[in-house]
């Protein structure tokens, strides 16, 4: 079972990210589960969501304490003490950032993606969730590009879906 945590800020779509990922993983023929770490904090405050992916039915319903992956939607979250909590030693970070975090790279594998810029370019708003998933898909075997596309179509509709797929494809193509 793979456990993923998404760290973001209220309003940035950590929850949506986890949901799209779960939908996509299911479309890939696996079992999945996504859920928020629900608080009363408002837009702007640090927020979390969880996702589990497995080849068999997922019965476990605790929070995710020792994630295999952490997706970080906003580099400023790295300033907070808890952002990397529990990440497994072999764990992978998907980080939305223009800049590199060399110090951190010593400890963890980091996948960078400049999600904000790409989202601004294409959607016109800093909606980063599909972008980070694009990078995740490219660099890991966790979820396929096609499944993500289908998941986006299920979750969004019309223009918003199209644009998000564009973002996804762009990130996928440009990540290396």
């Amino acid at each position, binding site marked *: 079972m793979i456990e993923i945590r998404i760290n973001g800020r209220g309003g940035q779509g950590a929850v949506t990210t986890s949901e799209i990922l779960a939908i996509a993983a299911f479309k890939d023929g696996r079992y999945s589960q996504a859920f928020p770490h629900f608080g*009363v904090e*408002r*837009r*702007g405050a640090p927020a979390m969501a969880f996702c589990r992916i497995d080849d068999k039915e997922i019965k476990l319903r605790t929070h995710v304490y020792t994630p295999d992956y952490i997706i970080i939607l906003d580099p400023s979250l790295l300033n907070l003490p808890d952002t990397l909590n529990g990440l497994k030693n072999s764990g992978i970070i998907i980080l939305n950032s223009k800049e590199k975090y060399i110090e951190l790279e010593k400890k963890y594998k980091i996948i960078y993606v400049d999600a904000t810029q790409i989202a601004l370019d294409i959607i016109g708003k800093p909606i980063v969730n599909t972008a980070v998933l694009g990078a995740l898909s490219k660099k890991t075997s966790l979820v396929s590009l096609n499944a993500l596309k289908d998941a986006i179509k299920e979750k969004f509709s019309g223009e918003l879906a199209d644009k998000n797929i564009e973002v996804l494809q762009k990130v996928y193509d440009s990540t290396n």
Partner: protein
Amino acid sequence: MKKLLSFGTRSCAGCPASLAVRRILEAVGDNVIIVNGTSCLEVTTTQYPLSSWNVPYIHTAFECTGAVASGVESALKKMGKDTHVVAIAGDGGTFDIGLQSLSGMIDRGHNVLYICYDNECYANTGLQRSSATPYGAATTTSPPGKFSIGNKTFKKPIVQMLAAQKVPYVATASLAYPDDLERKVKKALTIKGPKFIHILAPCPISWRFDSSETIHVARLAVETGMWILCEIENGKIKINVTPSERKPVKDYLSLQGRFKHLKDEDIKKIQEKVDDDWKAYKKY
């Protein structure tokens, strides 16, 4: 002076509720007990072990702000204490689930200033319709759709209803007119008995506008005449701000995501309602 609402509330950026409370407390001072109903305000200012309040504060539940305030005021009376009691609740807690409790408090004549900050929905639970939600607005329980234009009722005229119950002082206020707001709070506190102030609280999250626009939207509400700044003292109404030329309501509506599905005819209906309201107010 100590901030009576301290730093570090958990409200969203651009929150009208926090801002309203800052203005209210500035006017009230520190000789007060605050009674608050469950709402964005409560949830974002008190979470054990931290509180944002530097004045005594009590929250109990959602629907009983008027009753709790009645109890607090009665206790103070018996203790011979001369402390203001200010009740603060959202529109849901005032127009809907707390209306009865408020009306009871008024009926018994408690010396309480009750303030409703009105973000025109249940914001704390994520933007559901309340009876303060304006016509046409999209909320999660009045969504637009093939068979729905959004909210199909006009806002409950709470100010008129409470004035009809003979509350000695009823007023509306706006965050864009802070001096007027503070003046009204101060004036209300000079009057013995129940008082009611109704503050329009444009919420960037629920109304879907940029967090920097809170005041801008509040001002447009007044300038388009969708929000009428007035005071009703013992049944006599005084309009505080009469825009020389009212801007079209469209200016106000088009800024907000919750109205973006409206068609021209819907907007016309809203414009007509506003025009009628002004006529009624002037006659009153």
